[in-house]
């Protein structure tokens, strides 16, 4: 007992020591590198490409933050995390922020002591089954074996959904998306369930994506977004407004093609001027340079460009904008004003 208390205390002390250090923004600047937690590999959202370079929609947020803070979009140390390890990594200070399709929930925000700075993808949990099973609705899945990533909200939604529909299932808990893919393709489970965007991304990597269908039921709300630790509001603001800058840039029409011209001199749209730092001192308020938002947008383009490049309809993942369109186009994306 004595030994276990000692070791436990040691672990906890290690965990807490990192968390106690305040001033993440200063730490990142001093380090010259942003430690960003990402997924272990979901095509389109965050995965290394053939050259070992991390690419993807969530990765784009990491790069934008690095560009805003350090002026260099490549100054990111990507730390792959699983559904289980991500929160410990963030709480312990191993990573400065987490951009890994993580659902914003009450208990994670309040009880786990994290600050979700916004939503970069409005998602919902879906089911994928092989076409040959002939299943057209999730309510027909009585008795099915379901592969599920452990340590996620999807695990709880799944239990709730099957319980409320009074049907049984056999859960097969799995650590990473890659293992789930292997088991699902080998037929060790009938169904794979996770966020619908993740399913589309996973399916796009299959040899024959057309042999698998996504069922129409979306059984939960999954607002996915980047998060930071509680208690460091300056750093939270930096990440929050970097994300907002990407969203607002699309709304007001700043993209990687015209950003050079727009930032050269103040134009006649004051909002664009304030975002790009040609007017006002928003960057200074954040503790960053005046061109922070310009750097963030130049890192990978505005929100819409990031979306189209990584997960849009012309990519293998092939997701429609849907809920993730600008509010002006009937979607939910709505950045508070830059003022």
């Amino acid at each position: 007992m004595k030994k276990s208390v000692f070791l436990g205390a040691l672990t906890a002390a290690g965990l807490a020591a990192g968390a106690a250090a305040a001033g993440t923004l200063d730490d990142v600047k001093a380090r010259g590198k942003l430690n960003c937690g990402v997924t272990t590999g979901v095509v389109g959202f965050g995965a290394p490409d053939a050259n070992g370079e991390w690419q993807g929609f969530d990765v784009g947020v990491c790069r934008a933050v690095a560009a805003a803070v350090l002026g260099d979009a490549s100054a990111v140390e990507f730390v792959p995390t699983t559904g289980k390890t991500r929160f410990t990594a963030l709480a312990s200070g191993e990573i400065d922020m987490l951009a890994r399709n993580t659902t914003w929930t009450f208990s994670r925000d309040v009880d786990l002591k994290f600050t979700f700075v916004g939503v970069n993808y409005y998602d919902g949990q879906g089911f994928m089954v092989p076409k040959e099973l002939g299943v057209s609705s999730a309510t027909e899945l009585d008795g099915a074996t379901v592969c599920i990533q452990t340590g996620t909200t999807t695990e709880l939604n799944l239990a709730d959904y099957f319980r409320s529909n009074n049907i049984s299932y056999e859960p097969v808990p799995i650590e990473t998306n890659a293992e789930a893919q292997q088991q699902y393709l080998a037929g060790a489970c009938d169904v794979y369930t996770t966020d619908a965007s993740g399913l589309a991304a996973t399916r796009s990597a299959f040899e024959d994506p057309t042999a698998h269908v996504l069922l129409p039921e979306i059984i939960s709300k999954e607002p996915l977004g980047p998060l930071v630790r509680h208690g460091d509001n300056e750093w939270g603001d930096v990440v929050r407004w970097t994300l907002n800058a990407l969203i607002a840039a699309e709304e007001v029409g700043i993209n990687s093609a015209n950003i050079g011209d727009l930032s050269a001199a103040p134009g006649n749209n004051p909002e664009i001027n304030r975002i790009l730092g040609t007017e006002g001192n928003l960057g200074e308020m954040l503790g960053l340079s005046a061109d922070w938002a310009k750097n963030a947008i130049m890192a990978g383009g505005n929100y819409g460009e990031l979306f189209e490049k990584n997960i849009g309809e012309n990519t293998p993942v092939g997701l429609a904008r849907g809920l993730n369109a600008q509010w002006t186009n009937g979607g939910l994306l709505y950045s508070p004003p830059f003022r």
Partner: protein
Amino acid sequence: MTTLTDPPKESFRLSMLIYDTRYRSTTFQVLALIAFLILIGWLISNTAQNLAELGKEPSFRFLGEPAGYDINQRLIDYDSQSPHLRAAFVGLLNTLLVAVMGCALATVLGVTIGVLRLSKNWVVAKIMTVYVEMFRNVPVLLWIVLVMAIMIETLPSPSAFRGADPEATLKVFDTVALTNRGVYVPEPLFSRSLGDLHLFGNSALNFNISLDLALLVAVLVAGLFVSGRIKHRADRIQEATGERPTTWYLRLGVVVIPVVIVLIALGFHLGYPELKGFNFAGGTHMRNSLIALWLALSLYTAAFIAEIVRAGIMAISHGQTEAAAALGLRPKRIMNLVVLPQALRVIIPPLISQYLNLTKNSSLAIAVGYMDITGTLMGITLNQTGRELETVMLGMLIYLIISLSISLVMNWYNERVKMVER
């Protein structure tokens, strides 16, 4: 008798604590103890302070809240509305299940391989050497993942059993289904069941004991006891008269006949697996995660046990074997009556630590999604509640208790087999 002169009385000076050899070691021990206690105190206060700053004071109240997740392998009743404590209990039972199954198989395999490694047959001995070296020198996690991968990739999925002309069929007279989701074997059923004994009421730790099973075990134990008495009597007669009465049919009878009678009385029959919907229904489902973990842990630990057994046998002087042979004992009797009982003295203590290793290694279960105590309490519960410190400490405490219990039982057994010094 000589009279000792009292040593001259000297006054105690502080410097003597270091320069006087009588006090020096005590001084250093006290200093080391103080330093150690300060370190522990610092760690504890640091932890408490940092957790308080984070607003996460240690609390075990989460154990009473509904877990919210499902577990596939449950030895007791459990659903997603059960509290976290019950989920941990389900995990604990799964840990114990794989540990007991693993220790049993590892012992059988290990003893066999250890004896065979000493075989005079060159080929057999070399094959066993290759086995031992192969398993001992590769991390057990890789074996677990490998066995799992083999099961998933080579066995057919349940859908292959479907249709008029299925690709796969049931094995062993249509009673066993080998699938990549696990093995379905016939389950014992009782048509005139005695029901269950419900223990611990409505608490989170309640569980049922099947009275049928309890009765069977009781009858079996009683039969074995009577059989032991018969053997005892035969020994006595042999010592008195030199003639050993034939008792094997008696001894077999008192064990088998009552068990068969009880089975018939309870209406024993087998339930066979049957393809229903997505999966097989009926029969006992041994999930591939359980089988992969069980086989890998057993095969790995068996390699170590084989070496322990070999060492134990080789520790018995060859003179013993020759002396026994000179008395006219056959080789098999020499092994059973002379060598192994003495070898056990050498074998048992390291065997304890192998059992402990196997139990602790079972915490690698999460690699194949086996829901043991690490997977439930220190996995999903930790993740859903964010109580890292509490769950990990609780988990360590549980492993400590399991390990100490194994040590206790094995040390008691060791006391019994160890040589009585005269």
